[in-house]
C-alpha cells in the first residue's frame, strides 16, 4: 500500500535511493561524463536546450544524465532551473541572415547564392546499424580535419566562380569532400530573395516587445509572437504529428521547405550605457522558413505565404514541423477556413507543452481514492436503483424519472 499507511515519508526516501542506484546502473561500467553526453549525444542536448528554453549545453547534458536519458524529464529539470534565473535584459532579434552556416539547404532552388551546404546530416545515410560503433573506437577517424568545426561541400564563395558546378547540387553523398568551414559572407535567405520580387509576403517587422508566456499567462487569441514562443518550447513529437497532419490534408498549406539553415549566430543586446548593441556570445540555431501556397485578393496580386520555425542547436525535424504548424495557425489571419486541429490555436497552444502534458497525464499516478470512493458510492447506488426498478418492471429498463 502506498497510501493510508504511516511511513510514506520513509518509503519516498527509499524510492529516491533506489532511483539513484538504478540511474547509475552497473558500477563496473564507467560512469557517463557530462562531456561525453554533450559531445556525443549532441542532438539530445539540442532538443533539451530547445524545449527547456535554456541555451546551456552543460546543464542540458547534466539534466539528461540525471533523467536517465528521459528527455522530457530532462527538459523539465532545465525548465525548473531556468525559472529561478534572474533576467537582465532582452536580446536584440537574431540576424539569421548573418549566420555562420554549417548546413543550409533549399528545396525550392537548385542553386542559389551561397549554394547548398549539406553539413552534418543523416539525410543520405543508409539506415544500417553500424556494428563498427559497437566496439571500442579504433581511431578518431570521425573527427574533422585539422580542428575544423564544420564540413562544407559547396564551392561558390570560396574563391570559386559562382557558376562553377557544385558537386553537392546533385545531393549525392559521393560528392562529399570535407573542405574548410564556409567563411563566405553571403548566405541570403531564400525568402528574402523571393521577397525582393514581391513573390512572397514580407517578413513582419515590429518594434513591439515580444510577448513572453513564461511571464504572462497565455490568453486567446494569442499574437504570432506568443504562438511562435509556444511552438519553440513545444514538444517535438506533438508538432511533428500536427505538421504531418497538415500534409495529409487536415489543414493543408502546400508547403515547400524554402530553406533550412543551421549554424551559429551572434546574440547581441542593446546597452543603454554605451548606446549600441554589444555581443553577448554565439548560439547555434536551426531555422526553417517554409514557402506556402499563395493567396491573392481582388486588390492584391497573389503571392506566397510563410511559415517559420526556429530551434536551438540542430533540431531540423522540430524546426520544419514548427514552420508547418505556424503556417497552419495563421489560417485565421489569412482568412482561411478553420477546420483542422493544426489550425486551431487554442487546441494547439494549450496542448503543445510536454512538461505540462506529462505532469497532468502522469498525475494520474497520485492517489485519487477520495474521488473514487464518491464515484464508487454513486455507481453502487445507481445499480441498486436499477436492480430495484428492473425487478419491478421486468426488464423494461431504467425508470425514466424525469419524464
Amino acid at each position, binding site marked *: 500500500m502506498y497510501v493510508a499507511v504511516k511511513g*510514506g515519508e520513509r518509503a*519516498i526516501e527509499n524510492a529516491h535511493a533506489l532511483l539513484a542506484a538504478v540511474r547509475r546502473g552497473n558500477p563496473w561500467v564507467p560512469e557517463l561524463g557530462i562531456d561525453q553526453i554533450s559531445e556525443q549525444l549532441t542532438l539530445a542536448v539540442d532538443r533539451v536546450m530547445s524545449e527547456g528554453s535554456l541555451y546551456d549545453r552543460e546543464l542540458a547534458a547534466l539534466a539528461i544524465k540525471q533523467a536517465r536519458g528521459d528527455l522530457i524529464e530532462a527538459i523539465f529539470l532545465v525548465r525548473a532551473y531556468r525559472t*529561478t534565473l534572474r533576467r537582465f535584459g532582452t536580446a536584440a532579434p537574431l540576424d539569421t541572415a548573418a549566420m555562420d552556416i554549417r548546413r543550409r539547404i533549399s528545396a525550392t532552388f537548385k542553386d542559389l547564392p551561397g549554394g547548398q551546404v549539406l553539413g552534418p546530416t543523416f539525410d543520405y545515410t543508409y539506415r544500417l546499424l553500424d556494428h563498427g560503433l559497437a566496439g571500442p573506437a579504433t581511431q578518431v577517424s570521425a573527427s574533422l580535419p585539422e580542428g575544423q568545426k564544420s564540413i562544407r561541400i559547396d564551392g561558390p564563395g570560396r574563391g570559386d566562380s559562382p557558376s562553377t558546378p557544385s558537386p553537392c547540387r546533385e545531393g549525392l553523398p559521393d560528392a562529399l569532400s570535407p573542405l574548410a568551414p564556409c567563411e563566405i559572407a553571403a548566405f541570403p535567405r531564400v525568402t528574402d530573395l523571393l521577397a525582393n520580387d514581391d513573390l512572397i509576403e514580407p517578413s513582419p517587422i515590429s518594434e513591439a516587445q515580444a510577448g513572453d508566456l513564461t511571464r504572462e499567462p497565455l490568453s*486567446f487569441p494569442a499574437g504570432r509572437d506568443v504562438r511562435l514562443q509556444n511552438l519553440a518550447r513545444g514538444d517535438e513529437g506533438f508538432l511533428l504529428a500536427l505538421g504531418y497532419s497538415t500534409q495529409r490534408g487536415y489543414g493543408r498549406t502546400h508547403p515547400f521547405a524554402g530553406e533550412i539553415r543551421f549554424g551559429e549566430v551572434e546574440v547581441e543586446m542593446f546597452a543603454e550605457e554605451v548606446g549600441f548593441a554589444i555581443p553577448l556570445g554565439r548560439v547555434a540555431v536551426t531555422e526553417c522558413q517554409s514557402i506556402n501556397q499563395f493567396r491573392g485578393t481582388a486588390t492584391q496580386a497573389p503571392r506566397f505565404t510563410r511559415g517559420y520555425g526556429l530551434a536551438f542547436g540542430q533540431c531540423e525535424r522540430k524546426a520544419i514541423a514548427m514552420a508547418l504548424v505556424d503556417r497552419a495557425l495563421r489560417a485565421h489571419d489569412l482568412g482561411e477556413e478553420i477546420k483542422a486541429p493544426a489550425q486551431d490555436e487554442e487546441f494547439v497552444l494549450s496542448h503543445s507543452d510536454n512538461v505540462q502534458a506529462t*505532469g497532468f497525464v502522469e498525475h494520474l499516478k497520485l492517489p485519487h481514492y*477520495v*474521488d473514487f470512493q464518491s464515484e464508487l458510492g454513486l455507481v453502487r447506488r445507481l445499480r441498486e436503483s436499477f436492480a430495484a426498478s428492473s425487478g419491478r418492471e421486468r426488464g423494461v429498463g*431504467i425508470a425514466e424519472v424525469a419524464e
Partner: protein
Amino acid sequence: MNGPAYNFAYLDEQTKRMIRRAILKAIAIPGYQVPFASREMPMPYGWGTGGVQVTASILGPDDILKVIDQGSDDTINAVSIRKFFVKTAGVRTTTTTVEATVIQTRHRIPETALHEGQILVFQVPIPEPLRFLEPRETETRRMHALQEYGLMHVKLYEDISRHGEIATSYAYPVKVDGRYVMDPSPTPKFDNPKMNDCPALQLFGAGREKRIYAIPPYTQVVSLDFEDHPFAPYRFDGTCALCSATDSYLDEVITDDRGSRMFVCSDTDHCATRRTHGHGASSLCPQDEGEKNGLRAGPGAAP
C-alpha cells in the same frame, strides 16, 4: 535542493508579489478565475504546483503549515509538499487542523471546522467548471461574463433524466456569492457544505492552467441543484473502523480478495484526535493502528 540557495519559500519576491496581486483580485471577485503567470516549479504540473505557488506566496516565517492529500497527512503528495516547505521556508508544520494557520489540501476539506485567520489552499487540476461542457477557454470566459450557466443546468438535468439523480459525486459545481459558478476542485461533494459561510479564507491555485480563485471568509457558497432534486451530500452509511465516527467521510479499504472491506476516516487528523479522546474502534474490529501492514479487516465494517 542542495546547491544554490533559494529565497524564503522558494519563489522570488517579484513572483510572490505577482501572485499576491492575483490572490487579492480573486478575493475581491469571489469565484472568478484570475489568470496569473504561473511558474515552473521543481515538482511536476498536476502535482499541486498551483497550490504550492499560492502557499509559497502567503507563507510567513511564523506560519504553521499543514499539508493533506485525500484528507491524510501521510500520503506521498502531502509528504513531498510538506518537506518542500520545511526545506525552503523552514516553517513549523503540524498535522493538527486547529493548530495550522495555512492548510494546503488536495481533494478534501478537513472534518474539523476551520476558524477565522486560517487559510485553506486547494490544489486545482481543472479550474473551469464548464470545461467538460465547453472545452474552449474563449467560450467559457464569455459564458462566465454573461452569467450564462444554462448549459450547466442542462447537464445536471440530463443526469437526472438518465440516472434519476445528479451523477456528479466530486468536483460538484457551486455558485459563489450568487455570481460565479465555480469548481470546488475534485473534493467529494460531501465537503461542499463546508465551503459555505466558512470563517477561513479559501484560496484555489491551478498551476498548469494558470488560474487563481478564492472564496473570502463568510461567503455564500451554494451547490447547484433543482427544487425537486435538492443537493444532497453523499456519505457511505457506516462507521469508521478506527474511531467509530459516524459523520466523517470514509475511505474504503479492501482487506482481502474475497470481498472483505473496512471503512476508515479519510481525515487522518480527525480520526487520530478522536481516538486520543477515547473514541475507540468498534468492538467487532481489532486494530493495529494501521501503522505497518495496512489496516486489518473488521468483520463489522463490511457492508
